[in-house]
């Protein structure tokens, strides 16, 4: 859906989405970095399981909820990338018990 403009980019930072490396730029929001990395599905709805992706990118819609560094349901558009950040997609609601998570 998105590509980066040709303006010289900032410093590259690598993050992991479901274990796969994605190249981000320092200062990116997690949501922005994933969109630039070609990610279209951010999570599956907790009600029907339908795929969802960011709608507002400003903290309003809560569509970009992801598990970031082990913490579930964080708004990816409000979190700035850090090198090595581990991001996982949530399929349905996050688990009550940590051991049930993969």
């Amino acid at each position, binding site marked *: 859906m998105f590509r980066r403009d040709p303006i010289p980019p900032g410093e590259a930072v690598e993050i992991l989405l479901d274990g796969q490396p994605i190249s981000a730029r320092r200062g990116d929001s997690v949501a922005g970095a994933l969109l630039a990395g070609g990610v279209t599905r951010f999570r599956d709805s*907790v009600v029907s399981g339908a795929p969802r992706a960011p709608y507002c990118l400003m903290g309003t819609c809560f569509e970009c909820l992801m598990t970031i560094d082990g*913490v*579930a*349901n964080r708004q990816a558009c409000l979190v700035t990338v850090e090198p090595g950040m581990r991001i996982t997609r949530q399929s*349905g*609601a*996050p*688990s*009550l*018990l*940590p051991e*049930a998570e993969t």
Partner: protein
Amino acid sequence: MDQHDITVIGGGLVGSAVALGLAETGLRVLVLDGEDLSRRASRANFGLVWVSGKGLGTPDYARWSFEAARIWPGFARDLEARSGVSLSLDQPGGYSFGLSIGELDGIIAEMTHITEETDGEGAPWRMVSRAELVREIPGIGPDVAGAVHGSADGHLNALRLFHALHRAGAAAGVTYRAHHAVTQIEPSSAGFRLRGDWGQITTPRVVLAAGTETERLAPMVGLAAPLKRSRGQIVVTERVSGRLPFLSAIIRQTDEGSVMIGDSDEGDTDALAGNPEIAALLAARAIRVYPPLARLNMVRSWTGFRVKPRDGIPIYGQSRSCPGAYVVLCHSGVTLAALHARRIAPQIAEGAAQIGPAAFSSERFHVPA
């Protein structure tokens, strides 16, 4: 307004259950309800069908609650069929946890007392030692000293109960009118004249089920319904997958996956805004009971005003001085909904002098002249 035989003031869980039961006896029922932002306990309750601990000092209340729990499965099936709304009634039994030996001893003493007062006719319960609890609830917090488990306790989706009662009522012919808060009741030759800023109507008979407003309305028709102010605050988490391995009166998981954490009892405030200090303590207690909850996000918190009779016991009755006027008031709008529809409404329909157990009579508050 439409032709009707009886008017129920209040469209909450109590009023809607009574209205449905009245309509099922063949009466034409009118429900007068208030505004969207009127104080409504029905939209702010915890969803328990709960027996344990109820009725200390009033064994009829313990028996009445237990009876409600027993008839709930049949009532739920019927209500679901009529409304098309699923209630997710689940009665797995519920725990009351003690976070110290002292607290646990207090719970056990109360339960023992109720059992003695009801001659064993109350709901069965058992003591659960810490060792047993660790086996029954993997992940139970290190601070939990033990618990009592009541076998009749359960819960349901209270929001959908509210929806189902309204829907089934409409299907049974109940006429529901919002924006009709009643501020004045006057006995008249044709029954009762009900007034509000919307105008007035005359009704042959009237049931007061207007929650906290009932206290003000009851004396207009010779009834008494003194209440105790009690604000409750609860905390609700996001939906989570996986089931909470227990039900308790302060922590429950809805069928949709949210965990509800209750609840405060505040007698000194009329404000609606929640108090984050109280939410913090409720959260802390819940985490001590079941530490995995710490990771969940709270997405909502709300406060509600309990419809709490001064002595905690339901208030039912027909007015002696104004026959045809009834009161149905209680704190357990969910638990007792089945009995309000199935027992109380038919008694009102036939004009019984005594409504429900004698101990619940509104006359207990009458001061002898």
